[in-house]
């Protein structure tokens, strides 16, 4: 479920990063107000624990496929939302850096999806109110299952929204949702069982850990619904702003690339050729911010009015391909040259 850089547009990636940075700042501020020094090494080592635990696979009953732990819910239950969010953010950062899971631009998106939803929505609004005193293993199981499923559904839906807003994928909304949500329902159920299992195990063997950590960390009042709603309103405003900026720039992008392709700026013939095509695609992808680019791309690939498309052998597409091959060849040569020089230096 890790989002990938290549599927994101800069506006969407930056929006998620902005949200993630804002929440991280808020979480560190909250944590600093009530911090116990003891928590700092505990958070760090638990981050390493989640990382190591994620690398252990297990067989999912009945399917033969293997799954692994996500960890957001476990952390939220043990550390509370603020610390858990920071730990999750650090785990995902290390994953992005060492395993290249997703990539650095998508990291904001991934921290948001796997950290914000379990820690700041599901934990305070579902897990905490429903679990009660947290003494009953059956109740912990049911509530953990529900929490993990909701958290993963939110995360998966968020991936769908981010991909669609970025407009790099052709997948229509309905099909994408049908693809992502059921897969993550299954993952959520497994995650819920594991979360409940670990919490219950720790409770049955060393219950003082859960009690003492919950006591020393003193979560303060749970995140209020009002704050959550305000955060969402702000994010919606940011997203809206970013998208409208996109919408207002795309005609420029279109003109710019047509100009680039043809080498001149008057093109009455093309305007006619593109207009019906634009309309057709606009109907299909009406709410995507990217359709302007799509047209621009098509126009630049065509380089000539649409009616003539079967015959375009020469022109831009040919020089584009030749250029690509030559540039790639030059880069390979540069690389091999430097490597050869280095090797000779090392031998001496």
């Amino acid at each position, binding site marked *: 479920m890790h989002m*990938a850089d*290549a599927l994101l547009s800069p506006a969407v990636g930056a929006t998620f990063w902005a949200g993630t940075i804002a929440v991280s700042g808020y979480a560190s501020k909250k944590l600093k107000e009530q911090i116990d*020094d003891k928590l700092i090494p505990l958070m760090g080592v638990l981050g390493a624990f989640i990382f*190591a635990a994620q690398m252990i696979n297990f067989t999912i009953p009945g399917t033969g496929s293997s799954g692994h732990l996500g960890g957001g819910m476990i952390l939220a239950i043990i550390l509370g939302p603020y610390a858990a969010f920071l730990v999750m953010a*650090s785990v995902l950062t290390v994953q992005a850096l060492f395993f290249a899971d997703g990539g650095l631009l998508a990291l904001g998106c991934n921290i948001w999806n796997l950290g914000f939803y379990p820690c700041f929505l599901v934990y305070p609004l579902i897990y905490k109110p429903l679990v009660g005193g947290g003494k009953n293993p059956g109740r912990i199981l049911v509530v953990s299952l529900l929490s993990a499923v909701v958290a993963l559904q939110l995360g998966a839906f968020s991936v769908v929204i981010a991909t669609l807003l970025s407009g790099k994928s*052709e997948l229509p909304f309905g099909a994408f949702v049908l693809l992502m949500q059921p897969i993550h329902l299954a993952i959520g159920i497994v995650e819920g069982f594991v979360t409940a299992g670990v919490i219950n195990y720790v409770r049955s063997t060393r219950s003082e850990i859960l009690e003492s950590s919950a006591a020393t960390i003193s979560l303060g009042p749970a995140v209020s619904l009002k704050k959550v709603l305000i955060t969402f309103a702000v994010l919606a405003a940011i997203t809206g702003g970013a998208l409208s900026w996109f919408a207002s720039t795309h005609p420029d992008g279109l003109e710019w690339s047509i100009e680039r392709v043809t080498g001149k700026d008057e093109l009455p013939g093309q305007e006619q050729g593109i207009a019906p095509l634009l309309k057709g695609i606009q109907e299909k992808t009406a709410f995507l911010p990217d359709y302007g680019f799509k047209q621009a*791309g098509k126009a630049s690939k065509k380089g000539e009015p649409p009616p003539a498309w079967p015959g375009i052998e020469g022109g831009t597409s040919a020089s584009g391909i030749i250029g690509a091959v030559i540039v790639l060849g030059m*880069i390979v040569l540069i*690389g091999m040259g430097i490597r050869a020089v280095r090797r000779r230096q090392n031998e001496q």
Partner: protein
Amino acid sequence: MTFDEKYFDVGRLDRLSYQSTCVHQLDPRAKVVATVLFLFTVISFPKYEVGGLIPFFLFPVLLMTMGEIPFLFVVKKVLFVSPFAIFIGIFNPLLDTGTVAVIAGMPISAGWISFVSIILKFSLTISAAILLVATTSFPGVCHALRQLGFPSLFTSQLLFLYRYLFVLMEEAMRIIRARDMRAFGTRGTGIKVFVRLIGILFLRTVDRAERVYYAMLSRGFQGDMPSLRKSRIAMTDMAFMATMITFLVVFRFFPVTEEVGRFTQELFR
């Protein structure tokens, strides 16, 4: 990938970052900022761009060769994480079937072009991220983030995570080996045993955190992780940034690939 392979993979990346080539000696801040600029520039290309992306391979190739990072190592890493992007991207050729070009008699649909564009962007962004870590020590990256204004709680969290990552992975590796030796294929690899294993690992982790905390207290820990290393932006770092920005601007706004192609066509005409 088995657990051992994953473990050694992380270790190898970490070891690569402690070499001392000219790339490794650049200031971590310069490399972090350059990588982020690079990523944004690559991602900002429109959906159907293919040619314009090619020159950007110069950046990873230069880092790789100057930094003496093995080529196959990077390629393997990129391939290993590619499934999600391919899985989502492969729908483009199926859904976007309008023909946009005919090359050597073969009709090429718009979907294939956007798919290739996704794959190129994916390779560029992922290899840039890998090369950042392979040429910069992880503590270096953390201090750079701290200096660039990330909250200190978060960067010290990262440093702790990194410090104990290998310790806990070794602990997990011992647990996995013990399980696998008793498992005979699939017995004992189910969710019940898994939960117990994670539970035990968790308890050991909490105990370890406590010991770490007392050890830190006895060494004067006061809630912050100061660094003795003084980093200063040198002339080489400035030169690196300037080259990088020029490189990005030129390749982003001038159709280098097409110009080279046109020039070659003219040459042979």
